[in-house]
């Protein structure tokens, strides 16, 4: 293994490591634009120049592999001067649109200029004009004047999605990034080009001009969009809440996790969070009397619902009660639900799976057909019909139609996604007591007698188990909207009202109880799960599969 000295510190690194990576291992930051650890190396931007002893000229750190005994200087006068010159060069034709540009605040030109530039410009020529505000795809706007031709986005489309939409055309200072003629930047992962663009050339149509990035706070989380569970940061607007007209979540960005999604996420997940601040959110417990919805206080709602549930069970027995849980719920929610329905109420008809009528999009990269983040967790926790020797969801609906089922407790599902509308209507209208617990209104909630508002994934702490058996944590970014509450708290309160208390005060308490009871989760704790999640026992193999798909 070659030994190399960087700025006076010696380090031994793997063969084939480049200087920029070796420096990173030492915590030395070398500025870069075109280099991205997830993409091939081209060495076009030249900002990463370093001095290597016994080499006549400065070298690019991103493209130079280390050799034994190499002595590198990343910070001497010669290097700093070169960096200044490169920045001056990159900014020759770059318009300083910063007040308008959405990248301002996280722009690498700005940051490096403040760190390394600060030169007096020698330029008097007019800047070359190119096309501004060019609509190049459903999610992306291009300002080719701002582009510094680092080709990251081009390489992303060539190497990661292999859709080849973008290219750099013309030569010299007329060179311009554009989609190929007749093409649009329209692939399932196009949003990632916005993330990796080091300047504001590619901006997000969904985010453009909504807010400024320095108002945003980041909270690490996991995308609930499909069973891959990509790691994300939730960017929410706490400092200027009045800004976005009640929209608290401004955007989602992928968060690096080498085991799951690396640097990327799909567009479906990225733009799929809008229901969180949507008008259709259920914000208070509600009850339908004579066809009209009426708001209730939580106390009254819990009282009434608990009483009605008890009455139904007393009158018709446990087999007349159906419970449909959801793989959208966290492990904690599902565990509390299981305690409540199975232990407090001793029900058997508990299931969570509603197979979608239309198969979701799936590929061998990130996206999975199962659009639920916690199917695996639900299976592990034993809340399916099989585990409880009760009815499956389809059977429940059939029983309901025949009036054998008297009550249904439905969590999060929009049954319309799995069955056709008439079927759902026919079934639910025959049931005396339908309780819907969820975040947004839908056909199912409209057919219910009671609606309980749950908090969404950005409003709770908890864990999801992805398809490969990786348990990952989500964190609360904003307060639950209106009166909504995390599901496990609703179950806890109901359970307490029916005489069996669950001593949980934090999601962590629920998780600890879960770890004690469910073998698959043995030995886990929130600390152990950490930032990047942890694989459940017996899942090593599938995790490798997961990695394989990414590397290929």
């Amino acid at each position, binding site marked *: 293994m070659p030994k190399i000295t960087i700025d006076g510190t010696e380090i031994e690194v793997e063969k084939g490591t480049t200087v920029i990576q070796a420096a990173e291992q030492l915590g030395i930051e070398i500025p870069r634009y075109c280099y991205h650890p997830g993409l091939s190396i081209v060495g076009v931007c030249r900002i990463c120049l370093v001095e290597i002893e016994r080499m006549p000229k400065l070298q690019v750190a991103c493209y130079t592999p280390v050799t034994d005994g190499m002595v590198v200087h990343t910070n001497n006068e010669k290097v700093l001067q070169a960096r200044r010159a490169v920045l001056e060069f990159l900014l020759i034709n770059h318009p300083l649109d910063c*007040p*308008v540009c959405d990248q301002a605040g996280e722009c690498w030109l700005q940051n490096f200029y403040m760190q390394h530039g600060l030169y007096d410009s020698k330029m008097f020529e007019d800047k070359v004009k190119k*096309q*501004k*505000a060019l609509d190049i795809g459903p999610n992306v706007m291009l300002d080719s004047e701002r582009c510094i031709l680092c080709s990251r986005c081009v390489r992303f489309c060539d190497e990661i999605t292999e859709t080849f939409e973008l290219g750099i055309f013309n030569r010299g200072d007329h060179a311009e990034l554009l989609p190929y003629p007749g093409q649009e930047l329209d692939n399932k992962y196009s949003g990632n080009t916005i993330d990796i663009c080091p300047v504001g050339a590619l901006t997000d149509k969904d985010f*453009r*001009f*909504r807010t*400024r990035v320095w108002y945003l706070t980041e909270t690490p989380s996991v995308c609930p969009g499909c069973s891959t569970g990509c790691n994300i940061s939730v960017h929410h607007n706490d400092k200027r809440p*009045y800004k976005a007209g009640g929209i608290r979540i401004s955007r989602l960005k992928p968060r690096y996790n080498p085991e799951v999604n690396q640097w990327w996420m799909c567009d479906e997940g990225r733009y799929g969070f809008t229901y969180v601040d949507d008008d259709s959110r259920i914000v208070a417990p509600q009850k339908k009397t004579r066809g009209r919805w009426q708001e209730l206080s939580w106390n009254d709602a819990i009282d009434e619902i608990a009483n009605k549930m008890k009455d139904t069970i007393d009158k018709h027995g446990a087999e007349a009660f159906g419970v449909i849980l959801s793989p959208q719920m966290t492990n904690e929610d599902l565990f509390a639900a299981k305690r409540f329905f199975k232990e407090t109420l001793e029900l058997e008809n508990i299931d969570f799976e509603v197979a979608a009528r239309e198969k979701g999009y799936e590929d061998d990269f990130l996206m999975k057909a199962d659009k639920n983040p916690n199917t695996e967790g639900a299976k592990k926790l034993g809340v399916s019909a099989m585990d409880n020797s009760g009815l499956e969801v389809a059977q429940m609906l059939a029983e309901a139609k025949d009036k054998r089922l008297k009550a249904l407790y439905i969590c999060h599902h929009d049954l319309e996604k799995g069955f056709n509308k008439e079927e759902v209507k026919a079934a639910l209208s025959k049931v005396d007591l339908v309780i819907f617990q969820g975040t947004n209104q839908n056909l199912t909630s409209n057919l219910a007698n009671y609606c309980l508002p749950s908090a969404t994934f950005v409003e709770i702490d908890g864990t999801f188990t992805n398809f490969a058996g990786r348990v990952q944590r989500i964190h609360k970014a904003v307060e639950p909207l209106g009166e909504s509450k995390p599901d496990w708290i609703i179950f806890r309160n109901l359970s307490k009202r029916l005489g069996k208390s669950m001593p949980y005060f934090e999601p962590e308490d629920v998780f600890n109880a879960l770890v004690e009871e469910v073998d698959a989760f043995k030995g886990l704790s929130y600390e152990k799960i950490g930032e990047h999640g942890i694989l459940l026992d017996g899942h090593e193999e599938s995790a490798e599969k997961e990695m394989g798909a990414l590397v290929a």
Partner: protein
Amino acid sequence: MNIHDKYKPLTFWEKLYLPAIIAGIWLTSKHFFRNLTLHILRALRIRRSAMGAVTIQYPEFLRPLFPRLRTMHRLTKREDGTPRCVACMMCETVCPANCIYIIADEKLEDPQIEKMPKSFDIDLGLCIFCGYCVEACPEDAIRMDTGILEISNLTRNGMVLDMETMLNLEPRQDRYVKYTKEGDIVSQEYLKQSKSE
């Protein structure tokens, strides 16, 4: 160093104490009797133009303003009448009173400008007139040179300035003191004008 060192040391006369006291009383009395006389002359309509006290008889007389004074905000316009502001929210960010509220909008017809404010409100009930917003603006879009000091309203909402109002305000040059090149005050037009009324 003691911070008081920057003051002049007392002279011999000042140290004697009594002469300084007497000088002070003399100065006060001089103004008192002068004002008394002038006011009487005015009241008797013998000399109407005489200014009695140094106190200004507001609002009949308005005090000349110095250009550095920060008065009510206005938004400047481009030649075509659209706001210069590009809704960059620098002023909103820097404002220590958090009293600026901007909502941005896209202006696609002109890709050279792209962004403009949809609404721009300043709550003068919260504003502390620090002028940071003016300093922060990269477009010279906001200024505090209207010369309007009379900012009051019967409701709190009435204290909120909106974009429309701010765009239509003009600087009131006539209320400001004018200087010669050497820095002497040459005219207090507004003051003179109100005097002769």
